């Protein structure tokens, strides 16, 4: 019965992605490396006062316990059936990476990540701001943030929503202008890179 299936308390966040032993082993490997780096960097930190107040003290303990957790996660993964042979680990990591980006959905997601990164970089590096006087005794402002947002979000909408370019453009333009107007005129917040 449906009730029986759902009466399992789930966590704060819905983790729909079920982890596989290979994925866990790969995670344990990466986290283990990260923890070793943290341990090394915390040992190298300056110690201006007594040992008890050393800036690297808690980071050091955190690194050590994280390493322990990574080992435990790795052990659990191996017990659950992940590959044990260390020489096969690079191949396993490759398989995990391939699993993550194999489907069409994942390729679209990867493209989305690239577009979003491109969007953030564009806002950071292109910088202009126009003021258009209006009869209502205030200047309407258009900044690089709005222009870039309209073009990039229209592009994303076209890709995923699949409506006509004009429709995507009008929806994006309306939303971005409304949003920036609330922030700029309503709450007096400056737009990115316009000062």
């Amino acid at each position: 019965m449906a009730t029986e299936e759902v009466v399992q308390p789930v966590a704060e966040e819905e983790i729909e992605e079920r982890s596989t032993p290979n994925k866990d082993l790969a995670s344990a490997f990466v986290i283990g490396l990260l923890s070793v780096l943290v341990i090394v960097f915390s040992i190298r930190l300056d110690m201006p006062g007594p040992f008890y107040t050393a800036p690297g003290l808690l980071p050091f303990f955190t690194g050590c316990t994280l390493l322990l957790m990574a080992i435990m996660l790795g052990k659990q993964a191996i017990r659950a059936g992940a590959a044990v042979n260390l020489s096969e680990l690079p191949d396993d990591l490759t398989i995990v990476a391939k699993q993550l980006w194999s489907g069409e959905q994942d390729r679209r997601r990867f493209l989305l990540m690239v577009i979003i990164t491109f969007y953030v970089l564009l806002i950071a590096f292109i910088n202009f701001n126009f003021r258009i006087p209006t009869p209502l005794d205030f200047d309407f402002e258009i900044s690089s943030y709005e222009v870039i947002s309209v073009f990039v979000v229209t592009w994303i909408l076209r890709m995923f929503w699949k409506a006509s370019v004009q429709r995507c453009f009008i929806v994006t333009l309306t939303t971005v202008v409304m949003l920036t107007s609330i922030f700029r005129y309503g709450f007096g917040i400056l737009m990115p890179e316009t000062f």
Partner: protein
Amino acid sequence: MEALVSVQEQLLLFGQNPWLWVACLSGVTLGILWGAMPGLSTTMAMTLLIGLTVGMSQSVAIMFMLGVYTGSVFGGAISAVLINIPGTPDAVPTMIEGYALARRGEGGLALGTAISASFIGNWVGIVLLILFIPAVLFLALQFRSWEMFLLSLWGIAICGSMSSLDAPIKGWISGWIGLMISFIGLDAIHGVSRFTFSSYNLDDGIGFIPVLIGLFGLAEILRVLPQKSPPKISSEVGRVLPSLDALIKYVKPSFRSGIIGTVIGAIPGAGANVASFFSYDVGRRRAAEEEREKWGKGSYEGIVCAEVANNANVGGSMLPTMALGIPGNAPAAAILAALQLKNVVVGPLIQVENPGLIYFIYIGLIIANFFMYGMAIALIKPCVKLFSLPKALLMPLILPVCVLGAFAVNLNFFDVYVMLISGLIGYVLHRFGFPLAPLVLAVILGPLADENFRRALLVFEDVGVFNVLWDRKLGTVLLLVVLYTFYDGIFRRRGRKELS
């Protein structure tokens, strides 16, 4: 007497400042609309709307965020009942019962029951918050550096356990990664640069608001947008408000679910999701034979159990947030972020440092609850139209909000980079089955844990371990609680897993 004067002062403040009411109403409205849209969670609403509070005064910002919180927790029920898609994860039990009723043409009544149950749930949460916060505050005032460190550590550990029930170790790893992020920047005691790699931007540390927006906003866009799941809309709403007799019938499950929701809300990491499922399960076991038959096929009592619990969770999560400075769940962490943005430091000394704030929040929650009830009824029909919009349209439009939200806090573009990287990391962590709430909690609690840990060690420099354990009994109890949390996560759950 002092409390009464304080309440009077706060009431006067509400009488003099109409913007408080406007902000609360706007927050509730936005929250309901946001929560009603499938895939847009309460946490996402809270984190993205923090950016808007930058330009608001302290009290207006608090009212706005309380409104968003109250509204969005209920909002999830609307799409759950009408289109069988839970707006928020905690609305899943409501969806099971509500959608079954909606298919029988009782969708309006199912929604009305959800609205009334949410209203009752909020009241239970508020009353228990008012009753228990003085006791928790009294206890919190006994806390010194050692206890504060242990409390922060326990907060992260229990959040890790609760947010990753199958594999607590993954929750802890997520929390520990958050701790490491929190160590970046100038150290609070000596001013030594830690893990900054000579970057001036990193000297100030990593702000948790961009991290929060990245993890719950951008990561969600990356997760949801490429998926294909078009929702179908039910145009029939029907009668909405339940009769008084029907409500009286559910007094007992309401009271029980309210207590469950509040208690779970007070435990860091165990959010509305855990509360609604747990209460739903307990409700099913406790229901009369005849009523139990209806569970899963359209039970009003099931809706009451789930909705009362997830709304009582709001008040419950505010308990540790206000009294200890440790958020009860991810949306409460967003409230904490909004408060810190306004230079409000919550915790054991809240009554000293911000006299009257607690009463302000009590009144704010009560007002938000009334607004939620009114707006929920008014917004049912517009919501049906709004959430018929596909995710492929909604999600890209959230992207500029993420950028603006991250930027608006410090007007520093570096925060946008932090948001971007957090979003990418958050998505990868999600795919590898790591929960994100412990990471955010640890980024918030990390500096507190670090400073107090070193201070405590300095205080204990010439004191023996046994003396520390004997003299600091509260600390010893906390230490045992922390150890038990790890023991329970590692050994007891493994045993249970093997048994099952």
